[in-house]
């Protein structure tokens, strides 16, 4: 090498230094023009120069090597209007430039991924896609369910019960299936969730799996609600798809956030309602005077319709302290970004033995080793441990013992005796690990490959101990159930953009998906503990036969999609997914799920007046499925250990149905997205109609045929129709003050079209699916003895709400103080009360639902119209329906209630500290109260329908009252500090 050759690299290296010496730096912060919140991940550029950077989590940016002189700083981010500002750059100096950005209510160029192959701009998507961004929601949000509740039209998430660890069901556009789970399919950072809820052998609640996702780690949730949008997810997707995206980190300065929430919970009265009598008629003259609480009375005095606002659970109700601590860090460079967080939360519950503790950690990283390759890695682990008091309508339930006293398991009205139920030990530990890696490769212009490999592992361990000398089983009993579900999924798509002519473009995509899910369960139980103290199952003197279950299901499919775009305003998409499922045996039951959609950005037309705003028209049609379980198609027997018979006994299990296939739902959706009135009113509207064909019903054959187990058969057909309208109105919009109201209306009307040979009480042709029905009275509200209608069962109405209205006003005050409220009305549904008739039959207190009736005719003085004592001096003031249901001859069919309610779910006041703590950037204080007010339909003399679910399960298909305490109210104060 020559000397010149050696010198050249040195000169080349020095050249930039010389250039840099003549440049300046622009630094600043990007904020939301309303409220001043920092905007992360905004792109900051100098116009005309190839100088670009992204803002960090605190909105800050730094652009170095900017040539001196006047430059135009340009800031852009999806969801905001582009902001530009001139800056005078001085050599060797740093110029401050703070920028404010205004939000664009309808961001048609926003990128969405759910329901599309790869990713798409919102303008290209022909179906509705709801996007819930945590940045738009006042924190703290205790659970993911709370984050989603009421946030988009068409989603129904009941508040649930106070039972520790219990989750909540989620419905999108009603029931997608009447036999299988109607829970939406959930993806977390592209990884398919292994199930919807932890299996529970307890006769109580079921913990939902999405509760393992820390709301503080979520960036956004995308929701598509039916087959018109979910076709590309194939079998399993008929109930909708929710895709959760966690935070990926933002480049720039490393930002730490610490948050603590301190709160208290309490239950509000849910029991008998004084001064109210009879089915929609407020008639104080009939109600008698207010009486003492039953709990202060015993014996005969308590028989006279005393007041039970808390169902006499008063001595056991607690106001527990709850606490939560979260620390997170985010940062990185343009090539590497990271986000990591750790959360611990827990506290007591409403009942004495209730307590829980949850840990959640997450680590996410995005690496861009080259301009063509991106690697996203996400990982999360959570552990949720909780203990709970014997619950619900079970014989070990404390609630059961109280409301049914003295004819309870303990045969006692004495609370000192009832206290012994607290010796029962119920515990559960849920462990969850989710790993996902997504690699994106764009080898050529317009082409991208994306491969996601994910692993989701959920495990639970449930224990119960009836300790030695426990009151209902002196010898003691111990049980352990270990259940696990894990899924390995692989998802690959390739997309190629093609320019077909000057204004016509196409994107052709193809891909495949494979999900392998395995589930195991082992249950051990032993009787006869050696004495007081802690024991394991092996300590028991008699160990029952273990119950071991194991199953594996594989689902896989291919998909193809083509998107045609004309002038970037007319879009047509067609696609198909072909799916197979191992539940259907060797031929896999291959099913094709086609889809088609169109969108039209009419506001981009030349004829569209500019002042009219933005509007996109859309229509979509598609199919999706729902697959039965692994063993549902074949005839099987259960090997049952039968020690009494000397070995294993074969018991008939599944009758078998070789013709079994998935349910197939088709949906048409038409609507528009619009932003009008100078972007002060945003509206999304959808009309949909979904028909589920080949609906699976559990067909019960005559028991005389020998196998009493029901068999799933594709014999049904039902439909769901409705509209969804979401509005966001900026009523007042000033720099320091604003009023914004978000509101939504969703309707859902279902109807059973066909049931084939199935006989299901709540599934009837021509009726809602499911329908609440029972025998009815001809003269329910007359003051006379009841007369039942003919033997045919009468219909009350649907079991799910037909109307849901939400209203959420937000007031922005000066100094970034924000007050938000969220309310919801649900109407049109009916609900059954399952256990009230037992209380009415047994007495001596009767059911709280009849307390006002008992004040007129005490339970102890009248037996009902067919009882021994059929008369009473005050009987003329009691209506027929109450004579039939409130007394000894109580008929359980008559405890049906309208489930309408109006609920104030949340009120939140959020304000930054007016001063800056040392070493911090900002501190935000939030005061929040939840579940604070509930108004029921006046005809409902039972409890809050929002607590109703079948056994509190996440996957329950119908809603009904059991002996359950409604979800508690909660007050929380939160501090979030960024530094």
């Amino acid at each position, binding site marked *: 090498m020559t000397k010149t050759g050696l010198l050249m690299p040195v000169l080349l290296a020095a050249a930039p230094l010389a250039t840099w010496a003549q440049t300046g730096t622009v630094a600043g912060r990007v904020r939301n023009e309303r409220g001043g919140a920092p905007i992360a991940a905004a792109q900051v550029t100098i116009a005309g120069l190839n100088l670009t950077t992204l803002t960090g989590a605190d909105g800050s940016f730094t652009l170095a090597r900017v040539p001196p002189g006047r430059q135009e700083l340009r800031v852009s981010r999806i969801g905001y209007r582009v902001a530009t500002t001139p800056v005078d750059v001085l050599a060797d100096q740093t110029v401050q430039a703070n920028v404010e950005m205004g939000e664009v209510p309808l961001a048609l160029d926003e990128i969405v991924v759910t329901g599309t192959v790869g990713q798409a701009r919102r303008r290209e998507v022909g179906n509705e896609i709801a996007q819930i961004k945590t940045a738009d929601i006042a924190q703290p949000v205790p659970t993911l369910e709370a984050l989603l509740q009421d946030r988009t039209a068409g989603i129904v998430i009941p508040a649930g019960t106070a039972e520790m660890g219990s989750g909540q069901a989620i419905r999108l556009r009603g029931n997608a299936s009447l036999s299988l789970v109607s829970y939406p399919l959930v993806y977390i950072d592209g990884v398919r969730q292994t199930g919807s809820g932890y299996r529970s052998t307890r006769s109580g609640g079921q913990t939902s799996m999405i509760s393992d996702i820390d709301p503080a780690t979520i960036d956004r949730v995308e929701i598509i609600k039916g087959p018109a949008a979910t076709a590309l997810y194939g079998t399993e997707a008929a109930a909708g798809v929710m895709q959760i995206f966690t935070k990926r980190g933002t480049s720039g300065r490393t930002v730490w956030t610490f948050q603590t929430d301190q709160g208290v919970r309490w239950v509000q009265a849910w029991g008998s309602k004084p001064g109210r009598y009879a089915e929609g008629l407020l008639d104080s003259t009939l109600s008698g005077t207010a009486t003492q609480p039953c709990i202060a009375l015993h014996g005969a005095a308590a028989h006279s319709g005393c007041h039970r606002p808390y169902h006499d659970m008063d001595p056991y109700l607690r106001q527990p302290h709850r606490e939560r601590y979260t620390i997170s860090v985010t940062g990185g460079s343009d090539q590497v970004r990271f986000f990591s967080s750790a959360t611990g939360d827990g506290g007591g519950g409403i009942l004495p033995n209730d307590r829980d503790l949850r840990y959640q950690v997450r680590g996410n990283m995005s690496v861009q080793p080259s301009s063509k390759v991106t690697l996203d890695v996400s990982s999360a682990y959570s552990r949720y441990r909780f203990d709970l008091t014997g619950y619900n309508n079970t*014989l070990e339930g404390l609630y059961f013992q109280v409301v049914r006293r003295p004819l309870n398991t303990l045969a006692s009205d004495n609370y000192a005796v009832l206290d012994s139920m607290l010796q029962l030990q119920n515990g559960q530990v849920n462990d969850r690990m989710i790993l996902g890696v997504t690699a994106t490769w764009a080898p050529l212009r317009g082409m991208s490959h994306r491969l996601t490999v994910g692993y989701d592992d959920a495990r639970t361990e449930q224990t119960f101990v009836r300790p030695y000398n426990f009151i209902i089983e002196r010898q003691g009993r111990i049980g352990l159930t270990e259940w696990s579900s894990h899924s390995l999924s692989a998802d690959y798509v390739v997309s190629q953009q093609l320019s077909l002519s000057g204004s016509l473009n196409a994107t052709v995509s193809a891909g495949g998906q494979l999900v392998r899910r395995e589930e195991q369960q082992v249950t051990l139980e032993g009787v006869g503990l050696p004495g007081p103290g802690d024991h394991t199952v092996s300590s028991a003197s008699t160990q029952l036969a273990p119950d071991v279950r194991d199953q594996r299901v594989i689902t896989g499919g291919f998909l193809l999609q083509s998107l045609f775009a004309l002038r970037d305003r007319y879009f047509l998409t067609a696609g198909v997914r072909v799916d197979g499922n191992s539940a259907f045996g060797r031929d896999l039951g291959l099913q094709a799920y086609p889809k088609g959609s169109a969108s039209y950005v009419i506001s981009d037309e030349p004829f569209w007046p500019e002042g009219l705003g933005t509007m996109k028209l859309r229509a979509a049609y598609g199919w999706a499925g729902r697959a039965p379980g692994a063993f549902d198609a074949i005839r099987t027997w259960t090997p049952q250990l039968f020690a009494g018979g000397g070995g294993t006994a074969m018991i008939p299990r599944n009758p078998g149905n070789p013709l079994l296939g998935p349910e197939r739902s088709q949906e048409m959706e038409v609507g528009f997205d619009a932003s009008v009135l100078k972007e002060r009113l945003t509206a999304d509207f959808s009309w949909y109609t979904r028909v589920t064909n080949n609906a699976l019903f559990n067909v019960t054959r*005559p028991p005389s045929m020998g196998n009493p187990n029901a068999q799933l058969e594709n014999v049904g057909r039902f439909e769901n129709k409705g509209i969804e309208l979401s509005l966001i109105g900026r009523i007042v919009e000033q720099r320091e003050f604003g009023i914004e109201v978000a509101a939504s209306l969703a309707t859902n009307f279902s109807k059973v079209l066909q049931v084939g040979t199935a006989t299901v009480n709540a599934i009837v042709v021509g009726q809602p699916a499911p329908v609440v029905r029972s025998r009815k009275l001809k003269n329910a509200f007359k003051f006379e003895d009841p007369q039942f209608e003919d033997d045919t069962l009468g219909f009350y109405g649907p079991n799910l709400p037909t109307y849901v209205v939400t209203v959420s006003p937000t007031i922005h005050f000066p100094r970034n103080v924000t007050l938000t409220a969220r309310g919801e009305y649900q109407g049109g549904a009916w609900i059954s009360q399952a256990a009230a008739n037992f209380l009415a039959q047994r007495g001596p207190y009767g059911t709280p639902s009849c307390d006002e009736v008992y004040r007129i005719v005490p339970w102890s003085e009248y037996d009902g119209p067919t009882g021994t004592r059929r008369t009473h001096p005050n009987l003329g003031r009691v209506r027929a329906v109450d004579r039939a249901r409130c007394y000894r001859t109580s008929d359980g069919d008559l405890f049906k209630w309208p489930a309408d309610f109006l609920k104030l779910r949340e009120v939140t006041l959020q304000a930054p500290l007016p001063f800056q703590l040392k070493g911090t950037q900002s501190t935000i204080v939030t005061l929040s109260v939840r579940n604070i007010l509930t108004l029921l339909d006046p005809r409902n003399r039972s409890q809050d329908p929002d607590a109703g679910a079948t056994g509190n399960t996440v996957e329950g298909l119908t809603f009904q009252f059991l002996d359950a305490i409604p979800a508690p109210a909660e007050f929380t104060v939160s501090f979030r500090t960024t530094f």
Partner: protein
Amino acid sequence: MKTIKGIPVATALVLAACGFDVTNPGPVPDEVLDDPGAYASIVRGVQFNLSRAVSIDAYYGAVAAKEYSTSGRVIATKLPLAFGQLTVDDMAGGAGTWNWSHSARWQAENGVERLRRVLGADFATNRFAGQLLMYAALSNRVLGENMCEAVIDGGPAQPNTVHLTRAETLATEAIDVATAANDVATANAARAVRASVRLYLGKFAEAAIDAAAVPTSFVLSAPFDEQLRNIIVESNDFMLSGSTGFRAHTVWRTFFENYYRTTGDPRTQWDSLTSPATARFGEFTNILWDFQRKYTAYGSAIRLASGREMRLVEAEVALRNNDVTTAMTLINGIRTAVNSRFNGQPLQPWTASTVPEAWDALKRERSIELWLEARTMGDLRRWIADGTYPSMFTIGPENDVANRIRLCLPITRGERQTNPNLSRTPNDPTNPIFDGSVAPW
């Protein structure tokens, strides 16, 4: 574009390589039961379901037959409306009475057909084939004695005797196969089953011949264990699951309350617990909880057939021939073989010098011997049918058993709602259980 075309093909190859051939452990496919190694577990499956059926038949049937009375704490479906009165839900609303009995019958008959198909000519000498035939006969006997009507494999309702006729046929083949297989116990069981169904069908001479061939020491029982529990024992406990009544029955105000108190006959042993009191009905403030002690453990077996019963079959046939002496000898032979719990001495023999007195003794002794074995309801029913309903239950209003409810378990609502050959209305004017009527007492 070549790349795009190649992708689906490549993906297909990858997915195909992964394979969808899934073998899931757990539930056993039907064809596996064709293997001779599974025959013992098929027989045990029949036993399992038959035990479940007999246990619950005995539990509910005892109330109908006044072997027991409801005391009204908690019953699975609904509290009885009045002391001692059962509703349709109590009698037939649950899965147990009807479903498990039919499950046992179907499983045994299905097993017979399976072995007949698989074994071919060897069927006639196969031990398991004999056992399945015997259990098929026994299941039909249980159904015939306890159910109001016979419904076979989703067919129409027929007289209950259809089950008994089937039982007779199956038992006959069982005797042949078990004998050929040198399975003496099964052959004896089949003869005992055939004797009892022939007695019910009025084939008295044939019944006596079958009964005579069964030794007095022979016993065939329905086994139970810690998991498949004898419900009559479990119901003495606090309720352990959501489907079983607890402390819902009492000996109070039945024949057996006073009988045991005066004789100490261990076959009708009961004990008392006055606190807590049980339910309150009408004029009864508290019903005493006098609970049976014939069965004391969850695993206590319930007899299905026995040589002792066969002696009573012979006695009844003798009595129908007006042979009082032979009948009383057989009756007292059974009776005096039992020692009183109070003094350890043999029970006092019954005395009878006339045919009606001997009938009283027979019926009384048979109800004592077969107490809580799911047999008395059928006995009362056939005795009513042939006009020999006895005066044995003479205390209180409970003697009017016939007017209160039919002495059988009705077709369940589940069967009516799913069987197109049956009326779906739950109202059956011939069955007072269905319309909920309560006879005054």
